[in-house]
C-alpha cells in the first residue's frame, strides 16, 4: 500500500480562520493572566529612624569584640559577623512566626522582636564534639599520622548536626531551625515530633518557660549544618528588617 503524502502549509489554518485564531489568542491570554503567580509584597524599607536604630545596634555589637549573628529578614539570610564585618552568609528558605494557641485559638503577640538584639542564646540540643583521645605512639589516633593510609576525620565528621535545633534567648525569643535535605557528614538524632509537640503543649498552657516570640527558620541542610557547626559559645542575634 502506498501512502499518499499531502503537502501541508502550517500557516494555512491560521490564514483561513483569522477570527478563530484571535479568539484563541485572547482566551490564552486570559488564562495566562489568571495563572500567573501573584507579585510578592515588597519588603518594607526601614525608615530613617529605623536605620539609625540599626546602626546603633550594629555599632554596639561591633564594639563587643564577639561573634554575633544577624538575621536579615528582607534578605532571607543569616550573617555571622564580628567587628561589623560579615564573615559568612547562610541563606534561609522560609521564616515563619509561631503564635501560641489553645484549643485552636491563636493568640497574637504584639511584642517587638525585629530591629533588636537578643543575647545569651542557648543552643538545644547543645553543641558537642566527638574528640579523639590520642594514645601515645598510636599512629591511628595522632592528628597528623605519618602513615599515608590513615585519613583523620574532619571537624564536620566529629561535630554531629541534628535536623532540628533551636536557639532560646533569655528575653523570650525562640528560633527553631529545620534543615531540609540530607545533612552532610555526621548526623545527630533530633527530638521526636511527638516530644516536640508535647513540649509545645506544655509551653503553650503555661508549664515551663514559654517563648514569647517564636520563629521557625527552614534552611538547606548544608547551610544549616555549616552554621550549627560554627556556633560560638555565647550566641547573640540581631534581627533586622
Amino acid at each position: 500500500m502506498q501512502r499518499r503524502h499531502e503537502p501541508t502549509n502550517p500557516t494555512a489554518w491560521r490564514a483561513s480562520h483569522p477570527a478563530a485564531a484571535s479568539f484563541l489568542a485572547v482566551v490564552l491570554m486570559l488564562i495566562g493572566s489568571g495563572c500567573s503567580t501573584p507579585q510578592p509584597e515588597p519588603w518594607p524599607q526601614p525608615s530613617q529612624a529605623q536605620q539609625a536604630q540599626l546602626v546603633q545596634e550594629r555599632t554596639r555589637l561591633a564594639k563587643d569584640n564577639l561573634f554575633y549573628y544577624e538575621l536579615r529578614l528582607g534578605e532571607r539570610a543569616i550573617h555571622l559577623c564580628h567587628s561589623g564585618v560579615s564573615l559568612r552568609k547562610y541563606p534561609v528558605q522560609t521564616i515563619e512566626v509561631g503564635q501560641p494557641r489553645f484549643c485552636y485559638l491563636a493568640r497574637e503577640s504584639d511584642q517587638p522582636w525585629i530591629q533588636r538584639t537578643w543575647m545569651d542564646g542557648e543552643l538545644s540540643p547543645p553543641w558537642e564534639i566527638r574528640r579523639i583521645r590520642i594514645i601515645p605512639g598510636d599512629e591511628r589516633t595522632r592528628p597528623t599520622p605519618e602513615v599515608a593510609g590513615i585519613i583523620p576525620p574532619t571537624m564536620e565528621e566529629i561535630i554531629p548536626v541534628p535536623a532540628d535545633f533551636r536557639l532560646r534567648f533569655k528575653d523570650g525569643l525562640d528560633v527553631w531551625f529545620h534543615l531540609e535535605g540530607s545533612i552532610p557528614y555526621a548526623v545527630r538524632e533530633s527530638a521526636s515530633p511527638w516530644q516536640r509537640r508535647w513540649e509545645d503543649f506544655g509551653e503553650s498552657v503555661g508549664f515551663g518557660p514559654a517563648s514569647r516570640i517564636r520563629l521557625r527558620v527552614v534552611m538547606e541542610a548544608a547551610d544549616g549544618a555549616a552554621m550549627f557547626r560554627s556556633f560560638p559559645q555565647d550566641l547573640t542575634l540581631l534581627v533586622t528588617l
Partner: protein
Amino acid sequence: MKHAPEPNENNTSHSDGGAMIRRPALVATVMIWDVLALLALLGYAVFLGTGYEYRTLRPADAIKHAEPFPEGADPAVQAKIKRDSDKVFRKLAPRGSHVVIDRVHNRLYLWRANTLLLEAAISCGAGSRLADTKTGREWTFDTPVGRFRVVNRREYPVWVAPDWEFIEANEPIPRSRSARVQEGMLGEYALDLNIPGYMIHGTLYSRLLGRSVSHGCIRVGRDDLRVLWRKVPIGSTVFIF
C-alpha cells in the same frame, strides 16, 4: 401443669440470673468507658489544637513587630548616631587585606575590602586530646576562635617542637633546645598571630589539606602561602570562626 418460670431479674436461682444481675453493671461499665473514650478524644483534640501555629512572616507584620525607636525620628539624633558609628567602624575595620578562616570547613579566605583575593584549602586543629600520664598535663588541639592580628612574619621558619610532640610519639622529651628544632616543617613562611604558639604556616602534609589535622595552627599549601606572604603584612586582621 407446670408453667415455665416468669423471667424475674431478682431470681438468682434462674439459670440466666447471673447475666441478668451483671447487665446493669455491664451497661455502667460500657458507659464509663464511653465517657472515658470521649474524654480521651476531647483531650487529644485539645492537645492537637494547643501549641504553636506558624504563619509566614509578611512584610506588614515585620513593620508591626519592629522595635520602636522614637528618639531616632530626630535628625540631630540620627546624625549623632551616624558620627559615633563611623568613628567606631573606622577604628574596628580591618586595614588593607584581612584573612577569614573557617576552621570547621578548613577554608581560608583572603579579602581586601569587599573583594575576595584568595580561597584556599587549609588544615586547622584536629580537636583531639592528649594527656601526659606521667605529669598529668593535658592538651586539646583546637584552633582558637576570635579576632586576631599578624604580629610577625618569618621566612624559612624553624619549628621548636613542644613537649606534646614527643609525648604523642611516645618518645622521651629532650632537654636541649637544639634537639627540638626541626627545619622545613613549617614550609617557606610563617605568619605569627597574637596568641603565643599559633601561626599560619606551610606544611609537608599537603595531602591532608582540607582536613582537620593540625595541633591548632593553620596549615596552608605552598602556592597559597606565597600569596598570603605577598598580601598579608604585619598588623593584618585574622578572623577565625
